[in-house]
């Protein structure tokens, strides 16, 4: 039977661009997992910001017991060390607190770079098409052929070991996933009525991308960005664990490496190597939970 024909082009009133960008993020506030994820982020951000106040000791300082012995391998609670000490007499709790700083620093900068580079490449490839697209997508193919972790290890070892080199190495490879998804999204957006209309009306490419396409891919960029946070933290942990990390910063990966190298496993020092692992899991899975909330919004057919 006759259905009510929709008008060919619906042009809704467009609110201010910043308001639109923010709304376009579509934070999944009604998904309990996503909210839990955001809360975990919030807790770790607070800990990272106030690390100086929360930590009980300097994480790199070699500590002594009141009896002037080296405070090595103390169990949690012993001599007032909340979570015990390392074999070299450092406070595990304080290391854990400061570890949140490098984790968040790495996670957020790497995610930002991955999402930014990936989105821009995907946007440009999808919007301009033709040879631009061909070249950029072949570059993505190449990036897919590079073994990620070995690449980061080699770069981190050759360049001076530092957090930033790890971030750069990750960004150099991981943009590929974001770029591919954003590109295909742009390809479908490009055929939408209002984009066609703007083009016919003579808007510049830059204006069309900024006003009509960018707001629509923002949630996807954000989604891939939050996946990258987890990847970055896990990668940094692996790199530090293998001994190619930044020697000047305390990270959870560094703590695990220290524990592993100091025979913590044989000593059954669970209090030493379990907490950093749990912290990594919490932060990374927080990203996954937020991501899942997004998937329900972006790909409704997956949700029940």
């Amino acid at each position: 039977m006759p259905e009510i024909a929709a008008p060919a082009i619906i042009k809704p009133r467009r609110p201010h661009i910043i308001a639109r960008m923010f709304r376009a993020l579509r934070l999944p506030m009604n998904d309990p997992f996503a909210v839990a994820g955001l809360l975990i982020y919030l807790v770790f951000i607070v800990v990272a910001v106030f690390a100086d106040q929360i930590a009980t000791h300097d994480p790199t300082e070699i500590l002594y017991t009141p009896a002037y012995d080296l405070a090595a391998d103390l169990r949690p609670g012993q001599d007032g060390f909340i979570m015990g000490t390392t074999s070299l007499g450092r406070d595990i709790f304080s290391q854990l607190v400061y570890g949140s700083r490098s984790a968040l620093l790495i996670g957020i900068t790497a995610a930002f770079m991955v999402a930014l580079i990936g989105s821009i490449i995907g946007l440009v490839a999808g919007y301009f098409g033709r040879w631009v697209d061909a070249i950029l997508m072949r570059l993505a193919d190449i990036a897919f052929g590079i073994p990620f972790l070995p690449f980061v290890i080699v770069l981190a070892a050759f360049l001076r070991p530092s957090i930033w080199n790890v971030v750069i190495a990750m960004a150099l490879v991981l943009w590929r996933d974001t770029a591919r998804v954003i590109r295909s999204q742009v390809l479908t957006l490009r055929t939408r009525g209002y984009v066609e209309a703007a083009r016919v009306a003579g808007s510049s490419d830059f204006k069309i991308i900024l006003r009509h396409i960018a707001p629509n891919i923002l949630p996807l960029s954000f989604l891939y960005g939050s996946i990258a946070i987890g990847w970055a933290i896990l990668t940094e942990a692996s790199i530090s664990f293998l001994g190619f990390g930044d020697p000047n910063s305390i990270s959870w990966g560094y703590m695990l490496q220290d524990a592993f190298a100091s025979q913590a496993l044989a000593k059954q020092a669970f209090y030493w190597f379990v907490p950093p692992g749990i912290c990594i899991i919490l932060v990374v899975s927080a990203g996954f939970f937020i991501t899942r909330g997004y998937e329900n919004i972006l790909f409704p057919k997956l949700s029940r």
Partner: protein
Amino acid sequence: MSEPLLSVRDLRVSYQVGRNFVHAVDGASFDIPRGSITGLVGESGCGKTTVARALTRVIAENAAITGGQILFDGKDLAKIPEKEMNALRWRDIAFIPQSAMNSLDPVYTVEYQLDEVLRRRGGLGRKQSRARSEELFEMVGIDVNRLNDYPHQFSGGMRQRVAIALALALDPKLIIADEPVTALDVIVQRQILDQLKELQTRLGVSVILVTHDISVVAYICDRTVVMYAGKVAESGTMQAALTAPSHPYTMGLRNAFPDLQGAASGILTPIEGAPPNLASPPAGCRFKPRCPFALDICGTEPPVIDVAPDHPVLCHRANESAALRIEAAKTETWMAPA
């Protein structure tokens, strides 16, 4: 008239949507005589597909048969245990879906899908199954060599023939065809309908043809059941529905569709408005908001009036239908909504 093959009595099917219940089928009654093609017509959302699926008892997860009877061969399909129902499926009641593309499994050959039904449901052996598959393909006019092809290798019309072959596989008593030709172009539509009619006559099977297109019904059906907003508005023989439509909705539908035979029957006049939201249907006659002949009395529940033997109509003014038909034939009647 002999005992009907299927007799639906006051059938009710509801969907749960959030905390609300939508009564998609709200007390539908009709009979399907043996060896007939019955058209089940109505606009989308009128509950016709829900009725069709309720007959197989494979309905959406959030749906349930909440009342009424489905008397088939002496059994009430609404009540029998699932095991008994499952034994009946496809052997007695087969189904031709709207889109054969999506309803054939893409990863198996057509022969596999015929064989699956013939052997698992029909109890045939490997050789018998192959022979029967070939026979079925010949019946629907497809080259036997194509049995080993995958669904995507067939054209739309061919896939629909495959679907018919599948439906006929176990010699069912009843075939429910849900919009079987809607996705096809007009020429192929006619070929498929001709085929269906020919096979139905030859095999003596009963067919329920669910469609929104009254011209399809007019083209091959013996009988028609017109549904509106979850209720049966009018049912009877095709002859009666074409020459003496007695519910204003049926009269409106006739104006809204071209003739499948291509005869230009004047201007097409759509019925203004849209069917009601079944989550909160209007009181009384559900067609009242769109009916050009509505009176104050139509705000109360309409009675079922037999305007002729075997021709029940759900309308307060059914007895005035002869006069209303003259009005309904005029385009301007439908232009100004009541």
